[in-house]
C-alpha cells in the first residue's frame, strides 16, 4: 500500500493546482478529497473515477481485479465511443470468490491476464485494483511486472481501490498510472509541427468527432487524445506532441503538468463547450503550436475557420434564440463541465438559475461565479423535496442535470435534459452547441407538458397543489413560530463533511470570541474536511461580529 499512499500524497501535492498552492504545508498534507459523510454521500469511488478516465482507450483490455460488484454491476454503462476497436466494451474481471479472499487473488489475476492475452491479443492489459484485493494484500504491481515479462505485453497496474476516495481522486490515480507505465514507452511513426494532445476528453457520445473535423481541416493532428477514442500506441507516443489542451477541468491536470515537466509540452486549459470557448480553444491550440515552431500562417487559417463556423452556428441558433430567450434553466451538474455548460447556455439567450457543484473544485466554482455573476446559486446535497421546492421557487422552465436527478424533475413534470456521462447527445464544438440548443427547444416545446399537468378527472386538487400547500404550511408555521424558525435556521448544516450546523458555529464565535475562520475550525471542526465551506463560515463570522459590535455600541 505504500506505493499507493505515496501516489495519493503526490497527487495531493499537485503544483499545477491553484487551490493547492494557496494551502499551508499542513493543509496540503491532509489532501484535497472531501471526507465522505456516511449516510449522506453520493457519487462514485476512486475505482469508478479511474475506470472512467482510462476505459475510453479502445484497444486495451481493461481487467478489474475484485469481486463481481465492481465490474459486474457497472460494465458497458459509459458512453465513450470508438472509431475502431470495441475491445474496451468487453468486460474483464477476476470476479474473486471466497477462496481467493482467504488465500489471495494473485494467481487468479495472473491466469486472467494470460487468458485475456491468449484470447483477445490486446496491445496492453490495464489491471484495476479494487478494495478487497487491496485489503488482502494482493501485490498487483508484482503480478503485472511478471506478466509483462513472461507474456511480452505491457500490463499496467492502476492503483485505484474505491475506498481511498472519490471519483476525482481516481481520475488522477489513473493519470499517474499512464504517466508511469505508458506515456513515452513507444515512438510515433512520424511527427509534424502540428501534433497536439487533448487531455481529459473522453469522447462521450462521440463529442471528439464534433471537434476533430475542424482540426483536420487546419492540418492539426491529434497525436493522442487522453483518453477518448485513443489507441494504446497513441497514448504511448503522446510525449512527442508539440502542445496540449487540457479539457476536463482538473480531472487530469497531473498528466498535463507532468508532461510539460518531463517532455516540455506546454498546455492550456480550455473547453469545447460553447461557441466562445470553442473559438478560444482553437486559437490557443494554434498559438501554442506556432510558439513551438509551426508556421505563423496557422493563425490566419484558424481565424478564418473560426469566423466561418461561428457565423454558421449563430445563424442556426438564431432560429431558436427567440423562442428560448429569457427561459430559465436550472443547472444541476457535477464539476467537470459545469462552468463550460453555463457559458454555452448563456449564448443561447437563456438565464441560469442555479448549479450544483458537488464534485467541482473551488476553482470550478470561481469560474461559474465569474461567468454567472456574484449571485451564483450553489446547490449542494439536495433532497428530492427540496429540489421540487427549488424548481418551484426558481421558476425554472427546464432542468439540466445528470441521469440520477432526472426523475425528480420529471416527476415534478418539468422539462429535463441529460448533460452527464450517460447522455446520448453530443454537445461539443460549434455543431454541439447548436445541438444542445435544439434539444432544449425540443424538450421545452414538447406537447406532453400541458397534458401531463392536467389533473385526473377524479382529483379535486392536483398533487402540485397538495405539495404547494405543504410547503406553504411549513412556511406559515415558521413565520408564526419565530422560535422554531430560529431553531431551523440554526440547524442548517454549514460544514457537510463534519456535519456542523450554523448554531454551533455562531455559539462558538460568541462564546470564545473567535475572529478568524481558522480559529473557528479549531473550535468546532467546521471547515476541517474538504474546506469548501470556508466562505460560508467567513460570512457567518462577519454577520456575528457585526451584530456583536452593534450590541456593544448600544
Amino acid at each position: 500500500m505504500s506505493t499507493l499512499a505515496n501516489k495519493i500524497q503526490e497527487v495531493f501535492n499537485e503544483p499545477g493546482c491553484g487551490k493547492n498552492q494557496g494551502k499551508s504545508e499542513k493543509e496540503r498534507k491532509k489532501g484535497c478529497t472531501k471526507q465522505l459523510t456516511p449516510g449522506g454521500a453520493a457519487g462514485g469511488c476512486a475505482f469508478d473515477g479511474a475506470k472512467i478516465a482510462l476505459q475510453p482507450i479502445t484497444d486495451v483490455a481493461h481487467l478489474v481485479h475484485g469481486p463481481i460488484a465492481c465490474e459486474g454491476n457497472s460494465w458497458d454503462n459509459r458512453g465513450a465511443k470508438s472509431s475502431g476497436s470495441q475491445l474496451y466494451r468487453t468486460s474483464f474481471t477476476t470476479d474473486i470468490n471466497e477462496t481467493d479472499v482467504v488465500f489471495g487473488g494473485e494467481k487468479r489475476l495472473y491466469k486472467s491476464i494470460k487468458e485475456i492475452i491468449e484470447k483477445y491479443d490486446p496491445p496492453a492489459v490495464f489491471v484495476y485494483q479494487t478494495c478487497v484485493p487491496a485489503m488482502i494484500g494482493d501485490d498487483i504491481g508484482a503480478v503485472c511486472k511478471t506478466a509483462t515479462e513472461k507474456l511480452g505485453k505491457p500490463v499496467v497496474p492502476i492503483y485505484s481501490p474505491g475506498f481511498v476516495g472519490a471519483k476525482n481522486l481516481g481520475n488522477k490515480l489513473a493519470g499517474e498510472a499512464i504517466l508511469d507505465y505508458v506515456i513515452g514507452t513507444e515512438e510515433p511513426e512520424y511527427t509534424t509541427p502540428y501534433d497536439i494532445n487533448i487531455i481529459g476528453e473522453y469522447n462521450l457520445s462521440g463529442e471528439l468527432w464534433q471537434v476533430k473535423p475542424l482540426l483536420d481541416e487546419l492540418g492539426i493532428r491529434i497525436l493522442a487524445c487522453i483518453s477518448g477514442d485513443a489507441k494504446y500506441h497513441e497514448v504511448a507516443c503522446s510525449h512527442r506532441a508539440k502542445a496540449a489542451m487540457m479539457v476536463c477541468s482538473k480531472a487530469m491536470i497531473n498528466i498535463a503538468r507532468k508532461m510539460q515537466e518531463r517532455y516540455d509540452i506546454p498546455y492550456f486549459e480550455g473547453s469545447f463547450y460553447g461557441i466562445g470557448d470553442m473559438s478560444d480553444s482553437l486559437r490557443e491550440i494554434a498559438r501554442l503550436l506556432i510558439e513551438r515552431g509551426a508556421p505563423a500562417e496557422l493563425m490566419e487559417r484558424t481565424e478564418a475557420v473560426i469566423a466561418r463556423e461561428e457565423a454558421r452556428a449563430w445563424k442556426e441558433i438564431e432560429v431558436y434564440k427567440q423562442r428560448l430567450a429569457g427561459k430559465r434553466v436550472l443547472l444541476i451538474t457535477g464539476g467537470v463541465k459545469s462552468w463550460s455548460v453555463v457559458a454555452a447556455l448563456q449564448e443561447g439567450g437563456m438565464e441560469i438559475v442555479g448549479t450544483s457543484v458537488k464534485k467541482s473544485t473551488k476553482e470550478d466554482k470561481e469560474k461559474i461565479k465569474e461567468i454567472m455573476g456574484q449571485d451564483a446559486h450553489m446547490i449542494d446535497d439536495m433532497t428530492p423535496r427540496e429540489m421540487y421546492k427549488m424548481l418551484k421557487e426558481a421558476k425554472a422552465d427546464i432542468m439540466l442535470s445528470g441521469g440520477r436527478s432526472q426523475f425528480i424533475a420529471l416527476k415534478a413534470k418539468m422539462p429535463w435534459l441529460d448533460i452527464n456521462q450517460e447522455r446520448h447527445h453530443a454537445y461539443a464544438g460549434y455543431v454541439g452547441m447548436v445541438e444542445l440548443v435544439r434539444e432544449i427547444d425540443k424538450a421545452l416545446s414538447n406537447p406532453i407538458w400541458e397534458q401531463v399537468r392536467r389533473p385526473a378527472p377524479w382529483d379535486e386538487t392536483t398533487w402540485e397543489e397538495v405539495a404547494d400547500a405543504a410547503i406553504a404550511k411549513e412556511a406559515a408555521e415558521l413565520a408564526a413560530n419565530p422560535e422554531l424558525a430560529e431553531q431551523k435556521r440554526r440547524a442548517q448544516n454549514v460544514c457537510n463533511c463534519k456535519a456542523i450546523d450554523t448554531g454551533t458555529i455562531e455559539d462558538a464565535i460568541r462564546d470564545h470570541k473567535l475572529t478568524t475562520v481558522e480559529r473557528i475550525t479549531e473550535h468546532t471542526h467546521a471547515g476541517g474536511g474538504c474546506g469548501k465551506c470556508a466562505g460560508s463560515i467567513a460570512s457567518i463570522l462577519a454577520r456575528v461580529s457585526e451584530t456583536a459590535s452593534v450590541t456593544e455600541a448600544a
Partner: protein
Amino acid sequence: MAKVSTSKKACTVNPLKMSQPIGGTLAFMGVEGCMPLLHGSQGCTSFGLVLFVRHFREAIPMQTTAMSEVATVLGGLENVEQAIVNISNRTKPKIIGICSTGVTETKGDDVDGFIRIIREKHPELDHVKLVYVSTPDFKDAFQDGWAKTVTQMVRDLVSAPQPGAPRRTGHVNVLPGCHLTPGDIDELREIIEAFGLTPSFLPDLSGSLDGHIPDDFTPTTLGGISLDEIAAMGSAEITIAVGEQMRVAALAMQEKTGAPSVVFDRLTGLAPNDELMALLARVSGRPVPRRYRRQRGQLVDAMLDGHFQFGGKKIAIGAEPDLLWATASWLHELGCEITAAITTTHSPLLELVPTDEVLIGDLEDLEHRAADCDLLITHAHGRQAAERLHIPLFRLGIPTFDRLGAGHVLTVGYRGSRDLIFDIGNIFIANAHEAEPDTWKIPNEASDDASASVTTH
C-alpha cells in the same frame, strides 16, 4: 436432466452475474418508507444505484456508509452509526435496510453487534427499524442477496400470531422472487383479488418501482408494503412463494406463522398457472373467475397460433436460476430447443432445466455456445454478443437499460405467458429466412465443405 457445471476460466468475461448486496437492496426497495444502506465504500452504492436508475428509470433511494481505507481497517462501527443517524435525520425513514459488501466482510465487521451498540446509544432512534443482512460480494449472486434479505425481513418484521388467535380469512402472503417485475406483481395481485382474497406482497416493488407519479416526494422508497402490513402477514391463511429462491423465506414464514406455504417454481406457462388457479379456487372457495377462464382460452389459442414459429427453434439463455428455469421450461414446452443455458449461481432447479448442460458462467460462455442459435435471451448486456453473432436478442431480466418499460415486462399468469409467445414469436417472424433462388440449390457433392450441404431451415 441437465449436467450442471462451473466455468473453469480464471477471468470472467462479460459478466452475467451481479452482486448479492444490490439484490438485497432491491428487496428493501419494496418496503414503504425504507432507505437501503450498503455498508461499504461509496462506489458499492453508486454502481448499484446507477444500474437500478437505468433499468427502472426511477429515482432510487440507496445510501452508503462511505467506508474509507482507514475506517475499513479500524472497523466500521462509527460509519454505520453515523450513517444511521444521518439517514434518520435527513430522510426520516421508517426502516433502514443494511446489506454488507465485500469490503466490510473481508474486514469481518460484526454489524449485528454494531446495531446492538447503536440501539443502546441512540434510544431516540427506537422508532426506526433496522434490518441487517450479510451479503459479501465475493459469494453468491443477485438472486441470493434478494432471497436472504426477504428471509431476514420475515424473521425480523413479521409478527407471530398469538396462540389461539383466529387467522384473517382470505389473507394471502406472496413472496415474489427477484425475477418478477413490478408488472408481474400487479398481475398476481389482480389475479388473487379476483378470487376475493387479499394478498400482501413482501417485497412489493409494484408500489415503489412501477413508475407512478407519487403524491408526495420522499427521499426514501415511494411505496411498497408498509411495516404494519408486513407484521400482519403473520396471521394470513396461506403463503405463496414464487421462485425456488423463495423457498427458505417461505419456510421461515411457515415457521413463524404456522400457516401452510406453497412454492411455485415458476408462473410462466400453462400448467403452472392452472395449478395457481386451482389453489386460489380452493383457498377462496370460489370458482375461477370468468376473466381467467377466457384468458386461459386465449393462451391456448396463442400456443396453437404460435407453435409454428417455435417448433425446433434453437435458443440460448443467460439468466439467473429462477428466470432461466421459467423461461427455458416455457420455451421448451412450446417446442424450442434450449441449446445453451448459462446462469449465475447454484439452485436445485438447474439440473431440471430441459437442456444438456447448465453452466455457471458468463456472457462470453453464452456467446461461444450461441453461434448457431435462432435467438439469444439475456439481459441488456447481451447486446454486444447478439450484434457480433447477428442473432436477435430478446432482453429479459435486470439490467435492461436500453429499452423502455423494463418494469412492466409481464411473464406471469396466463396473460404474461401469452404475451411472451407474441413477443418472442414476432422476433422469429421478423427474422424468418425468405426463400431465394439459391435456397434449394443442389449440393455440390465434390465439395469438401460438409456444412455447405446442410440446408438452412
